[in-house]
């Protein structure tokens, strides 16, 4: 379903040139739960951003669902992300000005859906993460674990085939981290969603189907 071929990413600043990814080739099957590990600065986030079409590789090719993504326009990319991809970030990135329900509805704003459909889907997604009683809260009124569950609801509300999670449990204690992990595992098992997760936690990684290790931009496992 996802195919990376010889991906390279070079960051150039005035003084240094960083090779964040070095000839990474990876194939991820539909329904797979993959974790990515490696020391800080080895290129995990970079890899995830490139798979999520949030960033472009310097070299190499990505195909998602057998579609080349290199030449898509800004608008096409936006539509592609909206339909196929869901993101979960380490620092949640909820919109603080919006209530929980509006935050979860966000991806549906960018496709054709009526206000009622949006509300219904968002309510369902919130039920799945066990937050039905928090819809009117603002993000600042939630705990870290609750925020991340809202973020998961937002990621799954549009029923994307692929979820990209960058250290989703990184800011949480192990109990809350396990809760989040359980939701993701369940999502993968019940709905067949492909999940790619970056983590620093060996225990979390071992609960997934496959582990990819990066070191200094190169794939070592």
């Amino acid at each position, binding site marked *: 379903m996802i195919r990376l071929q010889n991906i390279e990413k070079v960051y150039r600043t005035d003084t240094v040139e960083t090779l964040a990814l070095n000839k990474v080739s990876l194939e991820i099957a539909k329904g797979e739960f993959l974790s990515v590990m490696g020391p800080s600065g080895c290129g995990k986030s970079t890899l995830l*951003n490139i798979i999520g079409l*949030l960033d472009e590789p310097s070299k190499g090719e990505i195909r998602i669902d057998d579609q080349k993504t290199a030449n898509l326009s800004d608008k096409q990319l936006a539509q592609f992300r909206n339909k196929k991809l869901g993101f979960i970030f380490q620092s949640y990135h909820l919109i603080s*000005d919006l209530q929980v329900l509006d935050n979860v509805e966000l991806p549906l*704003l960018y*496709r054709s859906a009526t206000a009622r459909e949006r509300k219904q889907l968002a309510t369902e997604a919130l039920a799945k993460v066990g937050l039905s009683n928090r819809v009117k809260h603002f993000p600042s009124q939630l705990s870290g674990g609750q925020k991340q569950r809202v973020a998961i609801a937002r990621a799954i509300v*549009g029923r994307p085939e692929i979820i990209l999670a960058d250290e989703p449990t990184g800011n949480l204690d192990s109990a809350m981290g396990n809760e989040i992990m359980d939701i993701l595992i369940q999502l993968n098992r019940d709905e067949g969603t492909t999940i790619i997760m970056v983590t620093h936690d060996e225990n979390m990684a071992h609960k997934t189907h496959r582990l990819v290790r990066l070191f200094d931009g190169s794939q070592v496992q």
Partner: protein
Amino acid sequence: MLKNYLKIALAVLRRRKFFTFISLFGISFTLTILLVLTAFIDKVVGDNYPDKKRDRSLYVSRLSQEGKNTMSSSPPSFYFLTHYAGSLKTPVKIAISSGFNGTNTYVNNKKIAVNYKYTNAEYWDVLEYDFLEGKAFNKQQVDNGDKVAVISQDMKKEYFGDVPFVAGQYIEADNVKYRVIGVVKNVPITSYMLYSDIYLPYTVAKDGGYKTNKGYQGGYYGILLANSASDLDKMHNEYEQMVQRLPAEQKQFTKVNSHADTYIKSYVDTGNERQSGTFIVITAISIFAFILMILPTLNLVNINITRIMERSSEIGVRKAFGASSRTLVYQFIVENIILTLLGGLIGIILSIIVLKVINSANLIANLELSINFTVLFIGLLVCLVFGLLSGVYPAWRMSKLNVVTALKAQ
């Protein structure tokens, strides 16, 4: 979609109170100044009571003589207006009136300040005052030197109190009693050539200057009325030629200057022969309006950039979940337009209050300022321009933001 923009816009405004306050203050304050200013200009320039024949009138308000080192400038004399301006062929009538003078009078031992001016009989033909009762004095009465007076509505109320009619009663000014023969609607003092509380025949003037002063300069204004608007140019040229032929009165002077100008031109006349008053005033007003508008716009752009960059995480998230750059630009512009329209609304309300205060404080005699629809429309338009100007650039800059960068900046 629009409803969602509205939702987020209002949420943002509510949460960022300081930013909202600054923006709204900037917009509404500027708009208020603009609205009050335009209401003022509109009134002074646009209201043509009582000189409704403005389109075929030329105004003479100044005569100056200049020499090598000296210069003398004042309104022309009665003699000049009757003998020189009066000899012209094009004008069908000439309204002549003195500037207004102040004096005190007493009603029931209460002192009231009154302004009076002298006019000829044709004054009442050239100008179309609204008579609430009675009528103006005619040529016969002027020639006889009858002690009759036309008074303003306010004067009537102040002097006689709330009575229905006063024609035939007597009003005292400068120790002389005059018989009131007419009451007219008030003229604002900004129409300085036409404003007064009491209008008297020029022949009753105590100083007799209209008889004794045979010089060019004096204290009278003239309004030359042409047969039709198409005769204005001809009348203007005839006047200019007449003035050019005038010999200087004294040998220290070499040149006589005086112009018969259209209303606006005479209104903004600076007395400077070399630079037109109209030009100076228009330039000044444009520069003023421009600065007035550009400063808050720049300020808004600046605030908006900071504000939008502050929301870069939101931008990153929206992009990640499927917003295209164009959708985001649209969202931020809509937000700004909502903000500026809100500011506009406050500005309009503020202007109404300010105008009410100006009117009720009677800072400027008889001037009733009001918001008219043109001004309101211009105001709203200015607001929209503000909204677009201050929204487009930041929105465009923001849309260029890379998602990863936007998400990282916190």
